[in-house]
């Protein structure tokens, strides 16, 4: 364990803590309403580690949905993650269990941090990615557990705290802008996002990400020229 890299990863991950703990708690509170033991919420946080899918699961569990239905809904909801991996093929060159874990923990927020931030000079970036993933995972599990344990008795008014994730995406967007200095990918994504929000509000993320990826591939000669 490298303290310098850990410290960097911890600082970079703090905004995610302020997003994941209240969101995980919101999930835990809903989950314990189903009547299952709190430790099952912890288990879901540990093994599933997917925010939107876990919220969806609460509804499916309440309706006593079948396994196949749950499998298909999870695949559809999380299919955007396929595009994340596509852009990390070069970046993730760790091997073995470490790579397995990096892929397992690839949430929206982890992806955002990993593609925008860097470890301190001279430190191993694969280790840095590993710590970032593990810290985010930890925050999520803590949130899920606390929510399920405390249930509806939570007194603290955390409304609005999850804006930390919106602000994090905004900051990382600015960082990407400084790094890329080419408006094309931003304009493509903006158009796709607005279009997807209008025509496919329920599938906005997937449609917007898939469409921008396709357009980016198609416009490679143009984008490369503007470098």
């Amino acid at each position, binding site marked *: 364990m490298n303290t310098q890299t850990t410290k960097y990863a911890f*600082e970079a991950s703090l905004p995610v803590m*302020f997003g994941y703990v209240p969101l995980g708690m919101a999930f835990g509170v809903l989950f314990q309403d189903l009547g299952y033991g709190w430790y099952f919420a912890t288990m879901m946080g540990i093994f599933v580690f997917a925010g939107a899918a876990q919220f969806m699961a609460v509804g499916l*569990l309440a309706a006593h949905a079948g396994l196949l239905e749950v*499998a298909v809904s999870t*695949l559809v909801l999380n299919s955007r993650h396929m595009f994340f*991996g596509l852009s990390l093929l070069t970046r993730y060159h760790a091997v073995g269990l470490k790579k397995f874990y990096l892929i397992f923990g690839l949430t929206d927020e982890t992806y955002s941090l990993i593609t925008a931030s860097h470890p301190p000079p001279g430190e191993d970036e694969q280790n840095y990615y590993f710590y970032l993933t593990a810290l985010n995972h930890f925050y999520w599990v803590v949130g899920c557990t606390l929510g399920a344990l405390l249930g509806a008795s939570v007194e603290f008014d955390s409304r609005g705290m999850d804006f*930390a994730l919106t602000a994090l995406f905004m*900051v990382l967007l600015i960082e990407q802008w400084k790094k890329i200095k080419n408006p094309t990918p931003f304009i493509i994504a*903006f158009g796709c996002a607005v279009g997807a929000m209008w025509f496919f509000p329920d599938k906005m993320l997937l449609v917007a990400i898939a469409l921008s*990826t396709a357009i980016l591939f198609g416009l490679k000669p143009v984008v490369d020229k503007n470098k």
Partner: protein
Amino acid sequence: MNDNIYLLSIIAVMTVATFATRAFPFVALKGKGGHPLMDYIGRYMPPAVMTILVLYSMKNVDIFNAPFGANEFIALGITTAVHLWKENSLLSIFSATAFYMAALQYGLFA
């Protein structure tokens, strides 16, 4: 079916399905890291995804009725301004979040 066994099978199915979506490109395109096309997408997809995530996390904001998303837009403006000014991510995020929580809970623009 016993309720706990039902829940455990649901968790197992979700774990496998979620991991499958995350692992798919790494398995399907094994050994393609470093390919110019993958480097290209690795460079230009993060800015696109970040743009989409910002808009996605704002998707429940009602811009057609009062207060027209004022809380959210001011908070985003604070993040941007503080970040361009101080270049300190934590400061940019916390100042905007603090403002947003206060605005929401005390009904600044309700």
